[in-house]
């Protein structure tokens, strides 16, 4: 565990002000223990299959207090077997363990059994939200699609997640194509913006996939957000609706850049490696003992960075002072390499110290224009966990499950004073709650 020598150091002029009573007491005000659960009146049925967007959306509802029933066939959701390098505990993959949050597990084969669809219908009559990821139209053909369920439950919110959505000719033609993270990343525009410059050679200059499930998680988040908008409309009017989420929108609709840049520039952006297309310096550089992230994009931040790296003589060079972010790659790279030559002379801690020292002085000085060059030591997920910041904020929780043993998850992703999300349990055995659901919802 690396200590954080910079903790409680002052970075901005405002930080020197006395913390308000609110700030002083936040750690206890925001503690989720014993707080109300906002969705305690909501029943969610998650039918998603081999799709972590659906699972993530269901988790988010569960973290906000909904009763979430994960429905899968007796063989289990194939998502249980999607796991890095095959790592698993008793046949349960790591991501499935990670997303096992406050859910009930029930076995029903809606794809294969007519009678089990009838059971599902009974549940759906009492549910507020259904989540499904089958090919568009399959649920409808089975008699349990939105069109049929809304007749027995007009307040139902029906969230369908697929690659190309529920309407348009293409959605029909591509209905059977599953929504998978890497294809939805590719089809929604993320990898095209990530990768090295053309001269870097193959495969580095190829479009590059994000090394996390960026498409699945953003699709799941969008599904939860759309579903919550629908829950508010339902709360106000009693009306339900259908929510159509397409994996192929996940990135492009989240950030918006591809549509507007393609339209105004009449071409696609090239890949520019570690450079940024709006801000500079804004990225990561090699240093003596690893990598640092540097953000000094405003003019006064940039000038401050030149000072602390001993590069002040470049200050009046027009190429850098007024045109740091050119679409001429050679010019941008030239400056990048000049900075890299300097950062490599120092360790990460030395660079962080220099920036902190400058920033706290500049915050109090009238003459330095308040430049705040920010330098940080880059974290991997594994090293990020050690930061005391996350201990105090209870970002990581350790659970001990009787089947899966002890493990850690990241939770408590939003702190709220009245109705925060939280994780209460992680167990996720196939059919483990069949009796509970039968007793609670299927008696009449």
């Amino acid at each position, binding site marked *: 565990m690396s200590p954080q020598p910079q903790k409680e150091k002052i*970075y*901005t002029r405002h930080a020197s002000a006395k913390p308000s009573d*609110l700030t002083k007491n*936040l750690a206890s005000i925001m503690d989720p223990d014993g707080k*109300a659960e906002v969705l305690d009146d909501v029943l969610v049925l998650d039918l998603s299959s081999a799709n972590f967007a659906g699972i993530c959306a269901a988790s988010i509802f569960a973290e906000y207090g909904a009763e979430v029933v994960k429905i899968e066939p007796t063989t289990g959701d194939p998502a249980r*077997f999607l796991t890095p*390098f095959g790592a698993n505990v008793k046949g349960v993959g*790591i991501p499935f363990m990670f997303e096992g949050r406050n859910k009930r597990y029930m076995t029903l084969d809606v794809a294969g059994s007519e009678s089990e669809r009838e059971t599902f219908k009974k549940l759906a009559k009492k549910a507020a939200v259904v989540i499904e990821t089958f090919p568009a139209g399959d649920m409808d053909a089975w008699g349990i699609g939105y069109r049929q369920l809304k007749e027995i439950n007009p307040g139902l919110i029906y969230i369908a997640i697929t690659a190309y959505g529920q309407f*348009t000719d293409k*959605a029909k033609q591509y209905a059977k*194509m*599953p929504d*998978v*993270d*890497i*294809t939805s990343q590719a089809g929604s525009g*993320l990898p095209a913006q990530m990768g090295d410059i053309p001269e870097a050679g193959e495969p580095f200059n*190829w*479009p590059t996939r*994000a090394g*996390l499930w960026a498409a699945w*998680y*953003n*699709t799941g*988040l969008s599904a939860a957000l*759309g579903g919550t*908008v*629908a829950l*508010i409309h339902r709360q*106000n009017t009693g009306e339900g*609706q*259908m*929510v*159509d989420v397409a994996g192929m*929108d996940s990135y*492009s*609709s989240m950030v918006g850049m*591809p*549509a*507007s840049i*393609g339209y105004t520039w009449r071409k696609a952006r090239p890949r520019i490696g570690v450079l*940024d297309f709006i801000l500079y310096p804004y*990225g*990561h550089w090699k240093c003596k003992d690893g990598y640092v*992230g540097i953000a000094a994009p405003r003019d006064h931040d940039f000038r401050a960075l030149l000072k602390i790296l001993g590069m002040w003589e470049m200050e009046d060079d027009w190429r850098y002072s007024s045109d740091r972010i050119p679409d001429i790659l050679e010019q941008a790279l030239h400056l990048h390499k000049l900075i890299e030559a300097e950062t490599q002379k120092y360790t990460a801690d030395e660079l962080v110290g220099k920036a902190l020292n400058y920033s706290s002085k500049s915050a109090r000085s009238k003459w330095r224009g308040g430049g705040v060059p920010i330098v*940080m030591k*880059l*974290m*991997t*997920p*594994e090293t*990020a966990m050690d930061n005391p910041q996350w201990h105090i*904020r209870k970002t990581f929780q*350790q659970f001990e499950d009787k089947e899966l043993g002890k*493990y850690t998850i*990241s939770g408590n*992703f939003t702190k709220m*004073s*009245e*109705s925060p999300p939280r994780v209460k349990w992680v167990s996720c055995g196939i059919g483990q709650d069949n009796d509970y659901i039968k007793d609670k919802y299927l008696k009449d």
Partner: protein
Amino acid sequence: MEDYFSYTQKLFNPVDAASKPEAFKGIRVLDFSHVIFGPVAARLLGDYGAEVIKLELPFSGDLWRPATYWGKYWKHSNPIWHNITKNKYFISVNLKLQESKELIYKMAETADVVVENFAPGTAEAWKIGYSQISKINPKIIFLSCSTYGQYGPMRYFPGWDLLAQGASGVLTLNGYEDRFFKLPDYLGDFTPANFGALALMMALYYRKKTGKGQYIDQAQTEALMRMLPNFTYNSVTGKAIGRTGNVDPTMVPAAIMKSKDEKFVALACTTESQFAALAEAMNRKDLLTDERFKTNLSRLQPENAKVLNKIVEDWVKTQKGQDIIDIAVANAFAAAEVEDDWMITNDEWRLKRGSVILFKDDMYGELAIAGPSAHLSRTPSRVKWLARPLGYHNRLVLKKFLNLSEEEIADLEKKKVIGTYDDKPGLKPPVYYNLAEDPIYNYGKEVSK
């Protein structure tokens, strides 16, 4: 029974969106935020019908207004900014003056939601934080956005999307062993902004049930961490997932590959049946009986995954990009071409779906902007107007929402409590546009066209 897709076409038809109800009608949001993280959280409420009033400093405005790609402006505006701040009311108030605070307190009386993303502690120090606003309006829902959160030893560290990516570990996951890249397009702001908006919506739902407002602290690093099973992987195996380039280590095959006609194609199988379909399409049914590839878990063993991904990669090299996608559609596994800005803007499917919208704006004319990430059949999101010059809605907000008189507005102008734009791109109107004739800019005054 009517064909499913003809039914859904009617259900979702983008043409009908404007005549449908709005989920957040009557909700008023005060948006003190700047750059991307806070503004997008507030915008998401505006997309579904809330009145979002964005406050900016006179003459300089939001730091992100001029921040366009490689400095390329469009009609003196920033095309990216139109995506970040559409559907908002733009009012320009000098937060540093006492009169401005009184104006804000007056607005807070009728507001439902406040969003801010100053450095933690700043809003409190400026007396527009939750402690002060909740005294005026106890039912207020107040969202503070920051990189590390509002409490804890790191809270004062300044924030950018880059720093959240660096602090969560996301930045080190993309790419190759000795070469890696940050997530593009400030995804480290946009995704956390959606988490922030989600929390606001949950708080609205809760307030309707209980009458209680609340304070929300959204740290963008924690939002990014929510998407990383890497922590669990590490706690179970003691190892790190690390960087695996264009190969997804959670399923096999799954990679971005290059086709015969030099197209980049992503291809993936998540289930046994999808893999069987691919093997058949490749004319390699022998793979299905190979012990190494029989189940998901056996294919995932690194040595088997390497062999199988290579076999698929070699097959992709012999096929044209579109052919691979056609085969995937017919056989129900996943394949898609890597799409770039130009392909996305011109994609017929996206235009028909409303995922890319050719919006015709009163001030800027036509611009392609992104549609919503989720399409709702009853209360869809919609675009009403794009971003506006700094201070464009000053009069409308003061007169219509706050009922100020002409004299009071003139007094605020004179004291420089409110102001408008400076002559800079990103802040000013397009050169062809005459604001003197604009009835919204001159709200309540006679204008002649």
